[in-house]
């Protein structure tokens, strides 16, 4: 397992950070979050065409760059840092990954190149009204290539061209399906969300034509693995956001003067920041380690994903809370940027499951390991 980024990875990080600092400053985030689509097509084009970020972890045979999940995680972290508004998490992280895990070679050849090019946007539809993300929560039915049911919490589901839908076969097993967003029987509605920088949709399927992704896999195991990978990418995105909040809090504490002193010279503020740094650094270690495990197909991934997701969620929420508190009243205003990250933190905290569910899952997996090992 690697504990340091390679020079190439550091360079990738710098490139992405420079791009996002230029293209996704808070003013742009504020502009885009008020739009219906939620992103800027020109920036998306640059990100795809010029930087090739949409292709990063897709194999070269399918039009990708053939890097690993570790590089994807670095990009996610930087996007979390800048609160980038765009369908990267939905299409590249969730959508492309789901296809890579469940589609046949022929299907990959058909679907992935346009995704790698950033031309086709995919959304992954798992959760339903119950808000569960595991196989037991899947009640959407598929029969004879027709899909019926309702999916909720579909990230960027309102703008995707293609939907990857997890459904239940008549015999009861879980399977993955590609559904074109403009098919008959598909109705999409954007949901009102707490975090306007990440749009969610509800998608209703009524006998919608669906193509089963037919790699020879166990659907439940694939869902589980896709969720592990999603959690790891999200964890990396979250630590990026947490780091931004920490830096913002420390900077403000150094500038803001009360009682004739910078407030950062008061132990109440100083020690809060020190504790926060610890929490953020531990979460980063978990996120990086899990990303490396994902890249290396490490069998410990399920446990590491749980650690990464819960540590990152707790650190991000703590960072958001502390950053507002250190800013005082100003931190609670709309004009101050902190709340943008706060809302992303809150939304990410529960996406794919709460920290306590992930901890419980970790304990179950540790037990399984012992029992079956």
């Amino acid at each position, binding site marked *: 397992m690697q504990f340091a980024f390679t020079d190439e990875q550091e360079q990738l990080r710098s490139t992405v950070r420079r791009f996002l600092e230029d293209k996704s400053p808070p003013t742009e985030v504020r502009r885009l979050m008020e739009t219906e689509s939620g992103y800027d097509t020109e920036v998306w084009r640059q990100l795809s065409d010029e930087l090739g970020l949409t292709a990063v972890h897709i194999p070269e045979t399918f039009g990708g760059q053939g890097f690993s999940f570790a590089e994807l995680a670095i990009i996610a972290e930087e996007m979390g840092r800048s609160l980038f508004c765009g369908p990267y998490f939905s299409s590249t992280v969730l959508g492309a990954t789901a296809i890579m895990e469940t589609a046949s070679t022929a299907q990959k050849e058909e679907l992935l190149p346009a995704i790698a090019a950033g031309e086709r946007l995919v959304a992954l539809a798992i959760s339903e009204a119950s808000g*569960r993300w595991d196989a037991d929560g899947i009640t959407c039915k598929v029969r004879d290539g027709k899909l019926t049911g309702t999916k909720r919490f579909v990230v960027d589901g309102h703008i995707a061209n293609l939907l990857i839908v997890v459904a239940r076969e008549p015999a009861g097993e879980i399977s993955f399906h590609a559904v074109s967003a403009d098919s008959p029987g598909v109705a999409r509605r954007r949901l009102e969300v707490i975090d306007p920088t990440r749009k969610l949709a509800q998608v209703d399927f009524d006998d919608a034509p669906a193509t089963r992704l037919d790699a020879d896999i166990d659907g439940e195991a694939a869902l589980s693995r896709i969720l592990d990978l999603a959690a790891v990418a999200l964890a990396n995105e979250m630590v990026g956001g947490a780091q931004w909040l920490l830096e913002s809090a420390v900077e403000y504490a150094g500038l803001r003067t009360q*009682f004739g002193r910078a407030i950062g010279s008061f132990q109440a503020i100083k020690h809060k920041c020190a504790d926060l740094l610890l929490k953020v650094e531990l979460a980063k270690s978990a996120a990086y380690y899990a990303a490396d495990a994902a890249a290396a197909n490490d069998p410990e991934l399920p446990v590491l994903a749980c650690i990464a997701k819960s540590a990152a969620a707790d650190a991000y929420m703590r960072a958001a809370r502390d950053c507002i508190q250190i800013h005082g*009243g100003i931190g609670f205003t709309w004009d101050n940027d902190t709340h943008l990250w706060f809302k992303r933190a809150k939304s990410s905290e529960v996406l794919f499951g709460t920290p306590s569910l992930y901890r419980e899952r970790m304990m179950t997996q540790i037990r399984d390991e012992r029992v079956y090992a």
Partner: protein
Amino acid sequence: MNGSTPNSPESVRAEVRAWLAANWDPEADLVAWRNKLADAGWGMPVWPSDWYGRDLPQALAPVVDEEFARIDAVGVAKTGIRLLAGWTLLEHGSDAQKESYLRRVLTGEDVWCQLFSEPGSGSDLAGATTRADLDGDRWIVNGQKVWTTSAHHADYGLLLARTDWDVPKHQGLTYFVIDMRQPGVEVRPLRQMNGHASFNQVFFTDALVPSENLVSKVGNGWQVALTTLMYERRGISGSRALPRTDPPPGQIYAQEREETLTALEPYKWYPQRAGRVDLVEARAGNLGDDVDPELRQEVAKLLILSRTAEWTARRARAAQEQGRPQGPEGSLGKLAGSEIARQASRVHTLLAGADAMLAGADGPLDGLIAEILVSVPATSIAGGTDEIQRNIIAERVLGMPKEPRMDTGPFRDVKRN
């Protein structure tokens, strides 16, 4: 008759009851009725008999309240900060100021706002840099205030401004009543992260205050402000009063309800800010093992916090009522409230699960949960941050040593934003 009655609970009760029987009329006009209250002194019976009161000791005030409540009689205006203005002017104002303002404070005809906080002085109120410069028989005010509630429809403001920059900061402040309806005063709403705009920023550009509007004396502003703040801490400010549910028939109730609703409009989210433990209470008996594994413990922790905080507040009140010295319980409520709000937010998140991502019509309880989640961060800041509360508790309740101060010299030389 004012002041001549022997003050026993029985006699006061008989007297107010008789007066109400003779005067109360649910169909009266609100302002006319309140003028009657001011004349008789029953609206603020603990105020001096010279100024719309009856010199009643504080301990007997509940008797009067009970009699009003018994027949649903309407009292003087209590929303907003007008009563803080009333109390402050009563203690520090000139007779002319009392004459000008107190009656309309009670009738509710004038709206008041408090102009203390500034962008550069939040926790450190005494660090205000809004300036007032004497120019003949008037003061010229320049600067900026913030977190001002009701400023957008206020007639008058309680203004704390710096008039001397060469003395230590607490000594260079002066307290004024400022007319808010003048060209030099600009009020802009301040939007919060939860989307509401309960507060305003107020900009002063050569705004004018006539000399007679100076309260107390030049350089004594901090002392006067402390009076206002003391009454604020005692909960005199009525911003959290709720409108009557199901008001009885009668014109006066309709008028009162409209007044309350207008005053409360910006504060609709205040219950959400506090965490809405009531929503958790309602579900607590209903949480099986099929829910989030941490939920039952976290709910229990929330209910324990909230109940013990309530009992602690009651202990403080009971001690006060018995005339015992108030214990530390009284100062702790605000800090407990922050913990409760945070824990409630945690519990609502666990309860909602994925639905915690949704807001508005799509969100749980029609967006109420989302509003809680994005409002609770205000609780540990508004009205004094947790950090300031801990200083106060440690120094004033526990008697711990103060920090060395860096702002005791002439204000001109104090480091500031």
